[in-house]
């Protein structure tokens, strides 16, 4: 599985964190609100109770009744949600508010004077009320005292409604706040990570050869990476150039003495002697070994990082022109067709080496016609297109039994017969280093068809 992006990871963690944090905050605020709301109900009930007590008058039956001018109209209004009751110590209710009718509520517990009780009660219809009761000692006009329990109660419905409103608002606000925070964070992160995305873009550009190295202007934290990466790229290119130069010098300093030896062997003093022929064969072998190994070593086979994509048409055109010049006496026509937009991601020398060997072979064997085709090999899931090179001629072709051997010559140089050439095995090696393959077949032109396939990467 591909690791998730930094932004996704960060946003996911922050979301979890915010949900926990906001959740706890909401729970705390809810508790505080419930407490406050209950307290305010209790305060209200307290006021109502005091008002009821102070408005009480003795009635004829030795009970207490609220006076007619009791301000709270809700006591008299059935279903108003505000209830009141006065119960004498013998359990006889001397007054029950009209609103209590049908509720099945029994508000007053048994309380001694001075005692209070505050609690929830269930009405007959299942709704809840909060009730406050207080026991008092009433001194009648006739100096007799008697204890009573005063109760007031209020329906919880308005409280629940309020709580719900509060909760809806709370969730609304916090939800909005969370979204806002996450949005702000996402924007912030994108801005923060912009340099990383630039590195990514520039590396892609380097891969397809639009850039040779990363640009400047990176923040301090990234400079270490970018400068080191640039140094690495430069180093790699320099190393290849140096390496090739060394190989070139090696070839030059080795082949010139071989050329001298060969010339001496052709001199009048020894030419024609069997030993001269044998030595000449050995010169050929040494030459082939050096040629093969050096060519293999010089092939970059690299990713071509930071190299501009090679224009296949221009490279093949130059090669075709060069070989037509060399083989002008053969009178061969060489048709070159290169698909539009065909590029080679890698080192120009590798391409020239592969195509050069193939085309040179074709010119050697063709009777009159060569067809050279280059096509793109596309794969939408890959970043770089591949390349297919096909060289065909109308020469004698390569028999099936010979095909493996022609390609393998380089691997077993000691076994090969001198003068057979190492062209195709070099092509195979270079193609292999470029992640490609070589195939030999028959052309409809009548001769050999040789295909190099470099798959998309």
């Amino acid at each position, binding site marked *: 599985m591909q690791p998730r992006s930094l932004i996704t990871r960060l946003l996911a963690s922050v979301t979890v964190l915010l949900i926990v944090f906001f959740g706890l905050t909401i729970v705390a605020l809810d508790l505080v609100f419930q407490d406050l709301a209950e307290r305010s109900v209790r305060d209200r009930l307290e006021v109502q109770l005091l008002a009821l007590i102070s408005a009480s008058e003795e009635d004829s039956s030795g009970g207490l009744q609220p006076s007619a001018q009791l301000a709270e109209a809700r006591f008299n209004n059935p279903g108003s949600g505000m209830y009141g009751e006065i119960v004498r110590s013998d359990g006889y209710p001397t007054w029950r508010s009209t609103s209590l009718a049908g509720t099945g509520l029994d508000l007053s517990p048994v309380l001694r004077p001075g005692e209070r009780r505050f609690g929830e009660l269930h009405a007959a219809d299942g709704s809840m009320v909060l009730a406050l009761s207080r026991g008092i000692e009433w001194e009648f006009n006739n100096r007799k005292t008697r204890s009573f329990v005063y109760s007031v109660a209020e329906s919880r419905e308005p409280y629940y409604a309020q709580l719900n409103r509060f909760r809806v608002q709370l969730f609304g606000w916090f939800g909005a706040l969370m979204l806002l925070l996450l949005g702000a964070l996402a924007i912030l992160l994108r801005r923060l990570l912009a340099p990383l995305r630039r590195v990514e873009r520039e590396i892609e550009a380097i891969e397809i050869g639009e850039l040779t190295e990363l640009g400047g202007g990176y923040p301090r934290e990234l400079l270490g990476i970018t400068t080191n990466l640039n140094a690495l790229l430069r180093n790699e290119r320099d190393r290849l150039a140096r390496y090739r130069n060394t190989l070139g010098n090696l070839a030059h300093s080795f*082949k*010139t003495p071989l050329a*001298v030896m060969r010339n001496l062997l052709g001199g009048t003093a020894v030419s024609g002697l069997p030993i001269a022929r044998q030595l000449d064969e050995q010169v050929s072998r040494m030459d082939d070994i050096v040629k093969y190994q050096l060519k293999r070593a010089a092939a970059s086979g690299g990713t071509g990082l930071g190299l501009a994509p090679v224009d296949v048409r221009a490279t093949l055109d130059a090669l075709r022109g060069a070989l037509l010049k*060399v083989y002008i*006496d053969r009178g061969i026509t060489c048709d070159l067709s290169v698909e539009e937009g065909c590029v080679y991601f890698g080192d120009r020398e590798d391409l*020239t080496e592969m195509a*050069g060997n193939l085309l040179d072979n074709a010119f050697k064997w063709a009777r009159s016609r060569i067809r050279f085709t280059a096509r793109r090999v596309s794969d939408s899931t890959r970043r770089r297109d591949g390349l297919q090179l096909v060289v065909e001629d109308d020469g004698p072709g390569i028999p099936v039994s010979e095909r493996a051997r022609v390609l393998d010559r380089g691997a077993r140089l000691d076994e090969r017969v001198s003068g057979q050439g190492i062209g195709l095995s070099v092509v195979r090696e270079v193609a292999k280093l470029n992640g490609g393959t070589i195939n030999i077949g028959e052309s409809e032109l009548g001769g050999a068809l040789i295909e190099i396939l470099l798959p998309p990467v």
Partner: protein
Amino acid sequence: MRVLVVEDEASLRESLAAKLKESGFTVDEAADGEEGLYCGREYALDLAIIDLGLPKLPGLELIRKLRAESKKFPILILTARDRWQDKVEGLQAGADDYVAKPFHFEELLARAQALLRRSGGWAQPVLQCGPVALDPRTQEVTVNGKRVDLTSFEYRILEYLIHRAGEVISKAELTERLYAQDFDRDSNTIEVFIGRLRRKLDPEDTIKPIETLRGRGYRFALQRDSV
């Protein structure tokens, strides 16, 4: 035919020069690029053989400079590195063919002769003008199929004239192309050799292969059979 050999490895250059002389060429030698450029500018050359890995002035640069100065003679590259990139660059710079080191002299000679033949406008390996045929590969000259024995110098004069059959070639040009730079040049010698050639090729004075144009030079007068 006058050939310039530009090669820094002395033993290779000298043995190459010796063999080219044996094969009937007039040879100039240069040990580095700058000397090669000097020779290319100063001498009337028919061919240059240039090594790519030269001190002072790289072979590729030398070829470019010669071509930039409109030197038309064919150029054969010697290359040790044997990279296609080098060959293509060399041919694009103006060379006409390449030979990879270590080469067999016979191959180099064949390539050189092919280049010379082409630069004279000949497509076939045997230069045939009516009854006269000259094969540079074997240095054999026949008239009506019968072999004619020529000395080395006679052959060289005839080869040059037939190469450029139809063109007027001055005595001075012949001298330049056939003598090395330090040779004692005497234009009268040319006249003597032309006289001998006429007698050997045309003892009955019937085909008249070589014309003398007074004050201008000589011309090989027989029509080319094929080009």
